[in-house]
């Protein structure tokens, strides 16, 4: 008898703790921004804009925007976080309410989409190209529901906005920086998994290196994972041993291993998606930036303004969707000037940055 009681208690405890672990984020209560509190929280930000934004926000605060992360989840310091930041900005600017569901595995995508759709959320963001199949089904099942997907194109549904980025352009810029900075003429690239999205990073980067330093060799490795940080470190050490003094990654959590290796062996790492210099200010040279937040915010704005449209929305260097950043201040003025020169040329359409192997092989470095 007592065994039964004990077993029951243990099961209750286990389940309880599991639920506690899975609980969604404690929402910052989506304050509708009256009162003194929020004003005190961010007076320095834009005091001038606030009074103007507030009245406009009031009537629209009914809108609810849902976001579903991919398996990386919030806190990936990469595109899930960046998308969430976009919704935070939308919350500030338009007074919408934001909600998030984190996917523990790929099997959660569909149920999460459906549960938001059944709650009549005003728009549902699926963050990551892995959502594509689930999104396709959900968009058919709920034709009146507005959806948005990050990093995927080609669905062509009237109710799905597809936010895509020109990663190759951002990678090109950090490639230019790496090509000029390297002393060993060897540069490393670590990809997550070899598929077209990550190849855009690889070939954009290699083209950037080639444009300024045709003699430099780029060592390419794929980790076949987005979260095996130990393997990332191992790859970085191997590339460093082979002579690479700057290594760029497009591999999510694997990059934590690269940055740790850079810290230990004193070489340069280049971050991805967001500014990653805070992880090792002295060893992160710069970061390739992909402004998922800008994309998410711009779709949010279209929903607020009532002119939401399905189809592909491209964010590239022209609309500041991609670029590079250097919060730690490791770039010299020369390097910045060189990168900016290429940035302007890309914006002006002087040349096209390759995104695939074929385009890379055909790529002729422009003389600027």
């Amino acid at each position: 008898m007592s065994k039964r009681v004990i077993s029951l208690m243990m099961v209750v405890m286990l389940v309880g703790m599991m639920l506690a672990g899975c609980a969604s984020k404690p929402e910052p209560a989506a304050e509708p921004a009256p009162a003194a509190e929020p004003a005190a929280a961010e007076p320095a930000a834009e005091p001038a804009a606030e009074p103007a934004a507030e009245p406009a926000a009031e009537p629209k605060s009914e809108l609810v925007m849902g976001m579903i992360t991919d398996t990386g989840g919030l806190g990936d310091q990469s595109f899930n976080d960046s998308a969430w930041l976009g919704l935070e900005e939308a919350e500030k600017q338009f007074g919408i309410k934001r909600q998030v569901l984190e996917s523990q595995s790929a099997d959660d995508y569909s149920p999460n989409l459906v549960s938001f759709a059944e709650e009549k959320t005003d728009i549902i963001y699926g963050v990551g190209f892995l959502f594509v199949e689930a999104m396709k089904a959900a968009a058919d099942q709920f034709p009146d529901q507005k959806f948005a997907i990050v990093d995927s194109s080609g669905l062509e549904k009237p109710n799905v906005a597809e936010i895509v980025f020109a990663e190759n352009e951002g990678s090109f810029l950090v490639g230019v920086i790496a090509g000029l900075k390297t002393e060993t003429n060897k540069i490393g690239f670590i990809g997550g998994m070899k598929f077209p999205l990550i190849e855009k990073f690889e070939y954009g980067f290699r083209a950037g290196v080639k444009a300024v330093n045709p003699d430099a060799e780029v060592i390419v490795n794929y980790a076949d994972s987005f979260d095996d940080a130990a393997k990332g470190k191992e790859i970085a050490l191997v590339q460093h041993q082979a002579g690479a003094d700057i290594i760029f990654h497009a591999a999510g959590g694997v990059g934590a291993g690269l940055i740790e290796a850079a810290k230990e062996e004193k070489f340069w790492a280049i971050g991805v998606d967001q500014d990653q210099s805070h992880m090792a200010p002295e060893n992160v040279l710069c970061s390739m930036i992909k402004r998922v937040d800008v994309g998410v915010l711009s779709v949010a704005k279209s929903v607020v303004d009532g002119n939401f449209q399905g189809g592909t929305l491209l964010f590239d260097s022209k609309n500041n969707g991609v670029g590079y950043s250097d919060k730690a201040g490791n770039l010299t003025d020369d390097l910045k000037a060189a990168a900016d020169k290429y940035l302007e040329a890309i914006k002006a359409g002087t040349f096209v940055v390759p995104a695939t192997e074929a385009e890379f092989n055909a790529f002729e470095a422009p003389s600027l």
Partner: protein
Amino acid sequence: MVVFIALLASALRLATPLIFSALGGVFTERSGITNIALEGMMIMGAFFAILVTEFTNMPWLGVLAAMVAGILTSMILAVLSIHLKGNQVVVGTAINLFATSITAFLLELVWKRSGQTDSVERALTTNPFHFLENIPLIGKLFSGMTPFVYLAFVAVAVSYYVLYKTPFGLRIRAVGEHPRAADTVGINVYKIRYICVGISGMMAGISGASMSLGTISLFREGMTSGKGFIALAAMIFGKWHPVGAMFASLFFGFCEALQIQASTLGFDFVPSEFLQMLPYVATIIVLSGFIGRAVAPKAVGTAYEKGHR
């Protein structure tokens, strides 16, 4: 030569967490308990190693915390599967889910964000025996060795000694093969099984610490990336023997290192997926009996009920 040493160093580092966890698996399975929960115990170890190091700035205290966290987690498995006779696979799976969630939850509680912790100031990522680096030719091999690498081999030796050279080890094996017979000669089956599950928790905890504290000096959700299950495969490949498990882990580590080095060594014509799958193919071959026979302890997976016929 340089490349070869780098390859060997890589393999050793990648194999280290596998060796610890596989040894843990050997102990539990030898005593008759299936241990699917290695992964969960590793996650707990990895997290608590960083947590304690962050606040005390003493990495070895972090390792101790990882061991304690591993043991406590393993006790859930012990109580549920030994005393309450729950299905060991189901309990193990539950522990894995539980460990993933509770660490994510605590991470957010302590660091006020999710995903990953800050990196700790003092970790155990460097070689503790600097004099070894002065050995000609192979000195370079030691420069990247963490204390965990040395510890792993010590653990193998100790495990072998305990399992095969002590009365206690004989009891463990007896309990795993034929618990009723062991019981009739006065061995406390439950006690032996509790101790073995505890040992596996300790080993898996160190294994987790070797990944967080010994490799990337921070904790990240999902950082164990299935290594607990790979260790389980290594244990089977090593035929439930500590030394076998060690060689299997080294082989798995070597395959992964080979995959990383493929382009440097100049055989990138071999698809990396092939090298990746090699360890598992080997495990299947061993299991199917082509190379020697791998026989699991007879009583593994079944709960022992005293006085029941």
